[in-house]
């Protein structure tokens, strides 16, 4: 669902260069790459487009070499051309770089196998291993197959986040910087521009301003660490995906985003993603080298997350209201803003009762 929000958060600029990449061209280019990397007998097969938006294409394929099959993923800018972006999304080469650093830090991520800066056929792209597992939140939370995974997932997420947050910033290329107050101001101004006053949002904005915690030392923040972007197998966390919103910021942002009720898919009783306890995650996070935190430390950022998602839903509805996307789906999402309002009311009630 966030992919919808993300695609709208950045304006879409139609590529002015003629689009590269019919299936056949992509296949040929990949085969050339595979032959150079794995030997002249390598064959590329099963090329299939998995998803695509304005921001990125994802393709599945496999390389066979000597009867050995290697499933892979191609991530590629639409038409091979990196669109101009006005907002926070990072580029493909950066995403590949982050995956490499994350792997070194012990975070489960697909190994990057090849990066294409400006390939004549592929354009901007990279190839990674295709990890098998499930990303659909509802299935991960419901299916018997994942019952063991659900028990250990909160701790594994704590470890993975500690790994991401431990990556030395001086080794990374330049990334957007965004702390809590910057995000609050940004989303408040988006909300105000719509001129659709919502008293619950006003109260949340005021409370967040009044109660902003002292910023922690900045780290690499994944930016969209939640069910939907986590590949889960029956053994637990298989891979952390979708690094497009990575930035430099507060480590609590990642922990809290995983707790936002919108990503608990109906299992509101388990604060971590609908599957786990926050103390388990925080203990594992500290054991893996992160600072020790308490569940209360996450409250501010969880409220910020619900507010952010609510305003993202307003942005999707705005696409309908402005006439940019007249679909019934964009209209209907405007009636999901109230989901985040009730979450904010419940959170505000919680902090009032704690005060």
């Amino acid at each position, binding site marked *: 669902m966030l992919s919808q929000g993300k695609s709208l958060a950045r304006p879409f600029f139609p590529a002015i260069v003629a689009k590269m990449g019919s299936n056949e061209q992509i296949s040929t280019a990949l085969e050339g790459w595979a032959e150079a990397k794995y030997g002249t007998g390598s064959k590329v097969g099963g090329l299939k487009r998995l998803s695509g938006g304005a921001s990125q294409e994802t393709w599945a394929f496999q390389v066979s070499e000597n009867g050995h099959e290697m499933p892979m993923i191609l991530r590629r800018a639409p038409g091979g051309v990196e669109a101009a972006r006005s907002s926070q999304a990072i580029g493909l080469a950066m995403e590949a770089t982050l995956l490499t650093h994350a792997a070194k830090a012990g975070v489960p991520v697909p190994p990057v196998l090849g990066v294409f800066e400006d390939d004549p056929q592929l354009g901007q792209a990279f190839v990674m291993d295709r990890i098998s597992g499930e990303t659909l939140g509802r299935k991960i939370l419901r299916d018997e197959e994942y019952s063991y995974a659900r028990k250990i997932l909160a701790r594994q997420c704590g470890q993975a986040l500690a790994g991401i947050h431990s990556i030395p910033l001086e080794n990374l290329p330049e990334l957007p910087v965004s702390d809590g107050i910057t995000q609050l101001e940004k989303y408040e101004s988006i909300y105000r521009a719509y001129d659709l006053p919502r008293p*619950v949002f*006003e109260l949340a904005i005021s409370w967040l301003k009044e109660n902003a915690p002292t910023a922690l030392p900045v780290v690499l923040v994944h930016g969209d660490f939640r069910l939907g972007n986590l590949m889960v197998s029956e053994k637990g966390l298989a891979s952390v995906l979708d690094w497009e919103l990575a930035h430099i910021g507060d480590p609590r942002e990642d922990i809290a985003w995983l707790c936002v009720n919108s990503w608990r898919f109906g299992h509101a009783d388990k604060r971590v993603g609908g599957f786990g306890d926050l103390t388990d995650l925080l203990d594992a996070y500290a054991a893996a080298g992160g600072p020790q935190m308490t569940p209360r430390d996450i409250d501010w950022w969880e409220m910020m997350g619900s507010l952010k998602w609510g305003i993202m839903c307003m942005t999707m509805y705005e696409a309908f209201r402005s006439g940019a996307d007249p679909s019934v789906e964009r209209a209907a999402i405007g009636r999901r803003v109230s*989901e985040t*309002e*009730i979450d904010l009311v419940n959170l505000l009630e919680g*902090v009032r009762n704690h005060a």
Partner: protein
Amino acid sequence: MHDAPSTAELVEAVKRFIDDTASPQLTGHAAFHARVASNVLATILRELEQRPGAEADEKDRLIALLGADVDTPLDALNRELCKRIRSGNMDLSTDGLLDHLKTTTIAQLSVDQPRYSGLALALQSRG
């Protein structure tokens, strides 16, 4: 004006057409949008039934909370409420404010997404 069929009956008829006739013949993206359309019609049916009463109650609460004139339109009352919260005139410690927002949001969600988990939580804590 006549009211037979009523608005609700007309919406129900369209929803039945989508669910029983159109949807089964659609695939992919169109099938997804048909499901969304059917959900929207269900929202409209709940709205027809619940909005008039919920808005009348909301207005009564706002007039009391703001000490406003009884003729003030609902939109103006909500804008005034937003203004007072934004200026710091009202906050989490204001008597009745969070209760009002909770009641209003419960009513809104009962129309918009009655199965959302946060609604059940809010109703639970209300007791």
